[in-house]
């Protein structure tokens, strides 16, 4: 596999890149309801896909029900310690998973807001529907536009430089689905290029101009071919800019190669450090659907609840956030970046027989960065038997759209009602 990937990349290295004339943009119709673009207020969304287990992320270590529902998975108070022995307890009720040493450190510095009990009415236990609900901010997950795509349609159209991108993943998350704005999706920078035959470098401009002629044609709006064509145009335009910019990035922060989220966040840092307008970035980390083997080492020993699939993922999350935050600080960007972490649902408080947990409902979300007012928000859902629904799941306390509204109103300077379609109260983690 690597061989061809290298070939793919090597083909890029030998390429003569020639400046291109950017054909006129087809954007004139879109200015009516614009809101102001705020390049110094950047948002990085971190999606933990699969349904993160909130009860083992923020541990209610004084709740006896937590321990009775999870005889093997529960983390004891004495286990809320990092590998170095530092406590991860954040209040007289809650502690962070012991794998989250770096997040605990940032929490102590006032850089982390934890909103407890985040969900929505009539919770859906399907990954796909629940993700769509979060992506679209629509109660039924309907439509192809995401909440950030709607924001992009209002704020980002007409900006000549790259303002938004999904990073490190093969697919563009629906949160970034827009009507008119094409959000770039960048898997990695070296592949993000328009290549032609290296045997005839003199023909490159002819190739590029013919391509641009094709991608500038007017195609019927709303059709597949129209969407493909506008994406084609944006892809080559953005590729030229990325190839010009990102190589200027230098940093003393070293991101470990075995942490996929760190790889993605390094690319985010690289873009932010070299393209001043890059302000809406999105990364994903998958693997949170821990129906089984949530705890336990590779030999199948389940006695240590602090190791296992979930611990590894939270470690990646925590470590990547710290390195990214350090990198932003080094580039003087830390005051400009707000991070939002979410997952499509939490997991059921009661464990299953596979050392895992099934699909749940509400869970905490994290907001991280210098702009955040750190601390605990929301309320932990009750685990009392009478408070659980027939599937054994908890009731949500904070609607996720309240968190979105807070970000839109108090950070991005957008009217949250215009984006979300309804008024939601603000949570208080900003301002």
């Amino acid at each position, binding site marked *: 596999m690597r061989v*061809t990937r290298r070939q793919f990349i090597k083909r890029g290295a030998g390429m003569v890149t020639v400046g291109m004339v950017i054909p006129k943009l087809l954007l004139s119709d879109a200015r009516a309801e614009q809101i102001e673009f705020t390049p110094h207020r950047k948002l990085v969304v971190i999606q933990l896909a699969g349904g993160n287990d909130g009860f083992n992320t923020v541990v209610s270590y004084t709740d006896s029900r937590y321990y009775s529902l999870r005889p093997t998975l529960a983390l004891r108070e004495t286990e809320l310690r990092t590998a170095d022995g530092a406590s991860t307890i954040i209040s007289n009720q809650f502690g962070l998973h012991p794998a989250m040493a770096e997040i605990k450190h940032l929490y102590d510095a006032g850089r982390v807001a934890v909103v407890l009990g985040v969900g929505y009415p009539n919770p859906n236990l399907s990954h796909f529907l629940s993700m769509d609900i979060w992506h679209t901010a629509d109660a039924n997950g309907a439509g192809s536009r995401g909440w950030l795509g709607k924001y992009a349609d209002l704020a980002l159209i007409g900006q000549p430089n790259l303002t938004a991108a999904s990073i490190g993943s093969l697919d563009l998350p629906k949160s970034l689905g827009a009507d008119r704005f094409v959000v770039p999706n960048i898997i990695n920078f070296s592949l993000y290029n328009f290549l032609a035959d290296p*045997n*005839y470098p003199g023909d490159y401009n002819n190739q590029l101009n013919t*391509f641009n002629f094709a991608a500038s044609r007017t195609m019927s709006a709303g059709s597949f071919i129209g969407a493909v064509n506008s*994406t*084609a145009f944006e*892809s080559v335009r953005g590729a030229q800019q990325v190839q010009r910019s990102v190589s200027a990035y230098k940093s003393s922060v070293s991101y470990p190669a075995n942490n996929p989220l760190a790889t993605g966040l390094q690319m985010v840092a690289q873009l932010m450090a070299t393209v001043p307008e890059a302000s809406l970035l999105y990364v994903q980390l998958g693997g949170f659907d821990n129906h089984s083997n949530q705890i336990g080492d590779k030999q199948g020993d389940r006695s240590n609840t602090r190791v296992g699939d979930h611990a590894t993922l939270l470690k990646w999350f925590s470590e990547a956030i710290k390195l990214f935050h350090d990198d932003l600080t080094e580039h003087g960007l830390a005051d400009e970046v707000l991070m939002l972490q979410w997952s499509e649902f939490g997991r059921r408080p009661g464990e299953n027989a596979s050392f895992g947990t099934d699909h749940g409902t509400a869970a905490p979300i994290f907001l991280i960065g210098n702009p955040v007012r750190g601390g605990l928000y929301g309320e932990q859902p009750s685990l009392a038997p009478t408070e659980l629904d027939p599937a054994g799941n908890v009731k949500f306390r904070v609607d996720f759209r309240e968190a979105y509204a807070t970000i839109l109103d108090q950070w991005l300077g957008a009217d949250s009602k215009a984006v979300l379609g309804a008024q939601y109260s603000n949570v208080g983690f900003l301002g």
Partner: protein
Amino acid sequence: MASITYDEGAHLLRRMGFGGSPVEIDEVTLLGREGAVDQLINYEQIDNRAMDDLLRNSFDFSDPVDSPRFNRGELQRWWFTRMTYTRRPFEEKMTLFWHNHFATSASKTGDLFIYNQNLMLRSHALDQFDNLLLRVAQDPAMLLWLDGVTNVRGKPNENFARELQELFTMGITDVITGEQNYTEEDVKEIARAFTGWKFFHPRFDPNPYSYQFIMVEPEHDNTIKTIYDGTPWARTGNLSGEDVIVTVSARRATARYLVKKLFEFFVYPLDGSAADKATIEKFADVYMNRNHSIKELIRAIFTSDEFFSDRARFALVKSPVEIIVGAIRMLGARYNPGTSAREGASNNTLAAISIFLGQELFNPPDVSGWKLNLGWINTSTLLNRFTYADLLVVDRPRDLNAPGLWLSHEQLRSFAKKNSKKTVKRLLSTLGPLDVGGEMIGALRAYLERDDQGNAAGFALDDLTVDKKVRGLIHLIMCLSEFQLN
């Protein structure tokens, strides 16, 4: 038996396979609608020995523990080789449909079980749906993938029970009525019906691939279950997994859902209009009346007026596999997969590229499969499609017997015509036929005629033009938005 047009033949081969060469398209047009579809779906009658020989010479799967010869990359190379060389394209296309429908990833199951699953899906691709679904439910890869092996009495695991209903059969809500098809209670009850389902390798069986399904009695919940309570499909009793499969397969909601999935994979995306609902019902009737036969449903769909309608033409976005294999088959490019016999002697370009286009075979993103149509398209995956086109045209190997992917000079020469207009039209036809309009044809002609300074210099049918401009033209046509559609 009325023949079909060249464009209809090309459409049929693109959808039921990966696109045809001009000769292959001419052959199917003569057979007429029913004849052509019959030939494509009765694929077991087609001589495929050339591909079988190639596979035998190119792969060594004799020992699944021999990881240099048997691994995920090799499995991907194997499937791409099949798709590129098979004379039974619909067999591979339908297997791909089921791989997407019952999306299972080797990342959790391991390579041996995903390989077995692929063979199973291929041999039951046109079976009765109940039979296929039972095979899938008892398939080791699926039992691992959706945690069936840890679904035991007293502590059921809901993973398979949920996806069985949500993704494999009916969907959360009825495609036509919008009514909820099942409740959370049904998920729990059905999970209990499948408790104790496991697999094992028979102790003295020398074949390392032969695994068998077994229901482990002590782990199976032998108590009363009630499913679909208060509906016409309600059943109660000591239900087994088999009972559930029979019940679900017989529900009209399943027929409708399967028709919708088949349409959106093979014909065109459906909207919620009355006309489209009638279309779904028409084909759902075929499923219900023909004993849930996938083959009869498929025959009805591909011979239908809907399939041959204008609406269906280029109504889908090509998947990465369709882009990759399609270009090779349409152009008659050469892909030599090499052999696993010695180090560095194989070529896995196609599988590697497919990953960067967003479709890693045997590793779908999740149990809902790949997101089709515009789900394939974003700025990265499109740039990677363009890079694939570039890769296909720029390799000029010295050794024509070496592993690799290329277009030979002779092949390129056959595309080049005496003037730029004919050359452009020939390649637009071969790679489609694509209707791109007069202006675009003009721009492609201008490309052929332009020198390195961008001046019009004319078109001469010489070796340099063929090597430079005809290769460049293929690259540009494969970058057109029209080429991304199917």
